[in-house]
């Protein structure tokens, strides 16, 4: 029996055979084919730009302008890459990005899991306030911090140095949030057991709880790596010497025509392609984890 509303009165009607059930096999198959067709077209739109990027980096300047769509260069040339590695500071940029990313990732994993554990498990005065502040900080839009971060780095004296590039990135509020949520899901009994056996707080954290947190830690590693490798605005305000330029800042300057005037697309696209490789590799290796993170993030 179904109840449908007609005006203010309720009308009871007998059930009609629902349309969906009457779909024949043929219709369902066509539905699936259409679905896949749409998906494939969309996937193509999403993937094609990257294929074109790699292909164009092997073309000559003239061909890139004349025939942008083709994926196979008529004249395959390494010229863009040669130019990139010999006439610019690209290797230096790569090294700087690598240094910063590795330091930040290691640091973040350590500090964020420490703080997450403390907020989840340890009882101390002001715990709730600290957690509230961490959440509040997540809400601050980055734009407000552009100018003042520069001012603070200046005042402290670490402007234009590796310390200035790395220190502010060492902690990430979202990471604390993720680790806290994860630690709360670990049964307390394991820790209680360890304490009964006489382990101190840090020992419990380091040897017992942390190894169990591998999935969350891997998530933090991926997010930190990606975040610091792709970071740009922080490096704009924290450095000025050419020796400290990272990949993001360097490629951004390439885009505005630093190396030579004129639009040299193969060169710029080669730089962008190489820049994407490390994050892409991380992504493909750890895909499954990334896909699962978001499910975890929803269980608030």
């Amino acid at each position, binding site marked *: 029996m179904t109840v449908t509303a007609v005006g203010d009165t309720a009308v009871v009607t007998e059930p009609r055979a629902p349309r969906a059930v009457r779909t024949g096999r043929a219709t369902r198959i066509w539905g*699936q084919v259409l679905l896949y067709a749409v998906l494939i077209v969309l996937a193509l739109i999403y993937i094609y730009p990257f294929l074109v990027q790699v292909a164009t980096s092997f073309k000559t300047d003239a061909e890139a302008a004349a025939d942008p769509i083709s994926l196979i260069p008529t004249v395959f040339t390494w010229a863009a890459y040669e130019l990139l590695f010999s006439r610019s500071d690209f290797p230096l940029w790569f090294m700087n990005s690598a240094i910063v990313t590795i330091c930040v990732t290691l640091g973040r994993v350590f500090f964020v899991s420490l703080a997450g554990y403390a907020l989840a498990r340890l009882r101390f005065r002001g715990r709730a306030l600290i957690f509230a502040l961490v959440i509040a900080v997540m809400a601050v839009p980055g734009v407000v911090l552009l100018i003042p971060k520069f001012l603070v780095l200046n005042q402290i004296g670490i402007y234009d140095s590796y310390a200035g590039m790395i220190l502010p990135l060492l902690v990430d509020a979202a990471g604390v949030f993720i680790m806290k949520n994860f630690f709360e899901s670990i049964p307390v009994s394991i820790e209680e057991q360890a304490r009964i056996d006489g382990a101190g707080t840090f020992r419990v954290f380091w040897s017992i709880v942390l190894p169990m947190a591998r999935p969350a830690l891997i998530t933090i590693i991926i997010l930190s790596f990606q975040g610091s490798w792709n970071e740009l605005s922080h490096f704009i305000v924290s450095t000025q010497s050419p020796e400290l330029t990272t990949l993001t800042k360097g490629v951004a300057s390439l885009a505005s025509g630093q190396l030579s005037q004129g639009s040299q697309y193969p060169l710029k696209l080669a730089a962008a392609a190489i820049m994407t490789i490390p994050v892409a590799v991380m992504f493909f290796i750890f895909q499954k984890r990334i896909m699962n993170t978001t499910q975890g993030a929803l269980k608030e």
Partner: protein
Amino acid sequence: MTTQVSKAPRRTGASGLRRGEGAAGWLFVAPVIIILGLFLFIPVLMALWVSFSDWNGRGSPLSSSVDFVGLENYAAVTTGGGLAERNFGISLRNIAWYVLLVVPLQTALALFLAVLVSRAVLRGRGFFRTAFYFPSVTSSVAITVLWLFLFSTTGVVNEVLSWVGINGPNWFNDPRGIFHIGFGAVGVDSAPTALGDSGFLGISWWDWIAGPSVALFAFMLMAIFTTSGTFMLLFIAALQNVGIELGEAGMMDGASAWQRFWHITLPQLRPTLFTVLTLGLIGGWQVFEQIYTGTQGGPAKTTLTPAYLSYQAAFQNQDWGQGSAIAFILFLIIIFFALVQRWVLRERPVSRRRAAQYQVKGQKP
């Protein structure tokens, strides 16, 4: 009858298994507090001070020679009547159109992709998820460089458009507003006097309704391209949690697929929708890196965003007070919209009239 009330043992600090916990707790969160405090909290306070002062860029902003000037910087940017106000007005117009169009589009696209991918029965699902999510992994610099290439005058997009006979514009160099182009197509080429003469923040109303420029439109496409993947993942996870029973009940009652989606599935996605919209709003209002890498505000200032204007005012024109003021105004705007959005999407109790409709005649509600 007496009951014995046992007091729970005090667990703080001194005794038993949890000794030293308080100190350890503080020690563990100390790095986070120090770094967040130093590089997030204090900078915000310092910026607030600079926005209320006349610091000119030399020496420390906290030195004694820097004076408090009240709301002067804010006034210069909102009511000053000069170029500062006009630039701010232009940047607000640009970003308002950007957010207005990007947030719904990227949310809808992400939801659409999520629904499609969730329906795919075979193993292709993993491949499609990867394909749609990959752009979100790349850095904004790399994507901007790629986009500058794709949308150049002789680029991929214009070539594809030429296959269907459309002569594509010089995307990143075209300052015409897309709505102005639309108006032009129906014959309205210049401002009607009512709209042309008066304005807000130094921009005439005619220019306010110009819509995003062609260049900004290209950036919008880029934003949708890179963020739809992340939000798609959120929606996929949420869709997996949607109960099947409700959908089947709907099917039993004769609801079509679209009705089922709109009235059953979508309401259950409300929390995720809220998250996606909030993240989209917060991200959209703050566009900076793409502009810095790509067009630096051009052509004709139509890709100028408040965040980039703040950077430009401070780092290039040495107007640190105004730059900070612009940043804080933007902050307030973001908070405002996040709150509005929260209010709009709040859970509302079903009205009595509505509830009455679902009762069988004769029965009490």
